[in-house]
């Protein structure tokens, strides 16, 4: 009797260890990949490890990191936001056109407007029960059309760049301010997820929405908040881009959609929701940036970049996806 009980206990412990091993792999892999890439690049070109070039590298990753950070919250809920890049483009146009009237207040105004745009998508998603990728695909088309209309399909120059100078300067002549903005965004969102109930609710919804519903969580409100956060960071990413190009353009950020999705999934956040974290997106953005830089160091034509993103997205999703939730894959 006692033996049988011990065997059953052992079996139970073994069964419990299997998801843990998966957890370790998913946690360790992105960090390992990042370090291996960094080491490989350093061997190929030792100058890369100097502080200056590392900071430049981080600077170039900043807008992507900010863009992907908010979208991560939506993915943790089990949804996806395909509109972030188009929304960031719209934000750049709005910012460049609002700066003359609002000056310093233009950036917060644009971020707020984008948060509202995100919240509207979230509302449509929960109120009409339309899958998030359809709502945000529609949103992507809508926002880019609005950006084209508002700008007359042309680049909108900034008459005065002082209101956005803070986002493209080097503190102490060394540290790019955009890197600090990106880190602050990730830390702020991570803190929101860690120290408020929102984080637990988001994860609960991502893991098991029916259970979360039965537990009485405010599902609709949490999802709308997630989409609003995603919209807000898209607006901030747009502002970072305006700061470095001194202008807004209706397609300025459009090419960032694939890298942003890649950064989220390569970091190890599962597209099925629940599993993942904001620091993973930070690592993912690092991996995507290092790969891009690495390709050009290796003398590979920039044309192959898009192929790389495609392979990365499919490969990372396949590795991180939680198949226990998908009896039927659509």
């Amino acid at each position, binding site marked *: 009797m006692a033996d049988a009980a011990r065997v059953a206990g052992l079996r139970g412990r073994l069964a419990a260890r299997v998801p843990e091993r998966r957890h370790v792999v998913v946690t360790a892999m992105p960090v390992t990949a990042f370090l291996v890439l960094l080491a490989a690049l350093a061997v190929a070109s030792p100058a890369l490890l100097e502080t200056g070039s590392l900071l430049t590298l981080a600077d170039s990753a900043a807008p992507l990191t900010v863009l992907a950070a908010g979208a991560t919250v939506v993915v943790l809920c*089990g*949804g*996806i936001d395909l509109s972030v890049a188009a929304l960031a483009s719209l934000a750049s146009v709005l910012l460049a056109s609002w700066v003359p009237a609002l000056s310093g207040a233009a950036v917060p105004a644009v971020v707020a407007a984008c948060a509202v745009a995100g919240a509207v998508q979230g509302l*449509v*998603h*929960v109120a*009409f*029960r*339309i*899958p*998030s*990728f*359809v*709502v945000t*695909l*529609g*949103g*992507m*088309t*809508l*926002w*880019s*059309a*609005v950006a*084209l*209309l508002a700008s007359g*399909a042309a680049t909108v120059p900034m008459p005065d760049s002082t209101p956005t100078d803070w986002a493209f300067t080097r503190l102490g002549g060394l540290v790019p301010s955009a890197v600090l903005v990106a880190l602050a965004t990730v830390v702020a969102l991570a803190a929101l997820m860690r120290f408020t109930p929102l984080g637990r609710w988001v994860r609960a919804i991502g893991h098991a*929405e*029916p259970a979360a*519903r039965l537990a009485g969580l405010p599902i609709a409100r949490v999802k709308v908040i997630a989409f609003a956060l995603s919209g807000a960071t898209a607006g901030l990413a747009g502002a970072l881009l305006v700061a470095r190009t001194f202008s807004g353009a209706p397609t300025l950020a459009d090419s960032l959609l*694939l890298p942003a*999705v890649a950064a989220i999934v390569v970091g190890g956040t599962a*597209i099925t*929701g629940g599993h993942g974290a904001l620091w993973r997106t930070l690592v993912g953005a690092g991996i995507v940036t290092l790969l891009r830089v690495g390709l050009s160091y290796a003398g590979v*034509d920039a*044309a*192959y*970049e*898009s*192929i*790389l*993103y*495609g*392979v*990365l*997205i*499919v490969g990372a*999703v*396949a590795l991180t*996806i939680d*198949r226990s939730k*998908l*009896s*039927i*894959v*659509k």
Partner: protein
Amino acid sequence: MTADRLQTYGPTAALLALAAVFAVLSPQFRTLGNLQNLLDAGAVLAVVTIGATYVLLLGCIDLSAAGVMGACALAVSLLVANSRTALDLGPLGVLLVVALGAAFGCLSGALSVGLKVPSFMTTLGVSAIGLGVATVLFAGVQPAVSDPWLLQWASGRWLGFTRVTYLAAAVVVLAWLVQRHTRLGRYATAIGGGEDILRLSGIQVGRYKVGAFTVAGACYGLAAAMVTAQLGSGIVQAGAGLSFAAITAAVVGGTQLAGGRGGIAHSMVGVLILTVLANGLVLIGVSPYVQRAVQGVIVVVAVGATLWPLRHRLEVVK
């Protein structure tokens, strides 16, 4: 029952109403010449939408048209007589490109089924791969097509319509027959209706899914050849925006996003609605950017409307 009938006849009624409104608002809309323009303009979208419809019937989604068409447009312009390569394969080149499209579709399907990854993710990835292949083939120099046979597709007219339009019509009929009378078509609808039941009946669901994606890819390949004939050169953006337009057309016409309902006939009504809308809005002087915005809203409204009767059954929507 009423909701059912609304979904079957609603799109056709909407099409007739739209056409009536534009006919009243714009005298130019009522002309025969405009009807020819309209059908010529809708030909490419029709072929892309056929491909998207097969995938939608499964309950899957295909966002790869933009990338696959980019790669195929570059490939076809390099395979027929052109300004960059010495190749002059003519019709064989078009066939090869349709096969290339089918291979991309097969890749999307195999990745979805084999790795159990949701199709919108695999097709987003395959689209990126296609765009990359297109950019590599483009290599900074736009290939101009000089093959008279391919160029004739868009310039030669029979009874006022271009050959591209006849080709699209033939593909529509063929696709409808395949959907109605072959195992691939019947099973695609059945998989969308209840994949688990089909699996329990011992049907190789995965194989038919990959088949449907492959057919979709072949359609994108052909559509890319049609676009290239119309433009006279191969460009990376040959399919820009068409993934989304095709899904919009299919859903507006009554093919359900959740799968199992609708089909080629429904989707073609949707293509006509979008084409009439685009044509009519231009004729009454509305900016093309407003049209894009309208398309973005329409797809959300159409999906919302088809899901509305089911909303109590849909506990979890991701």
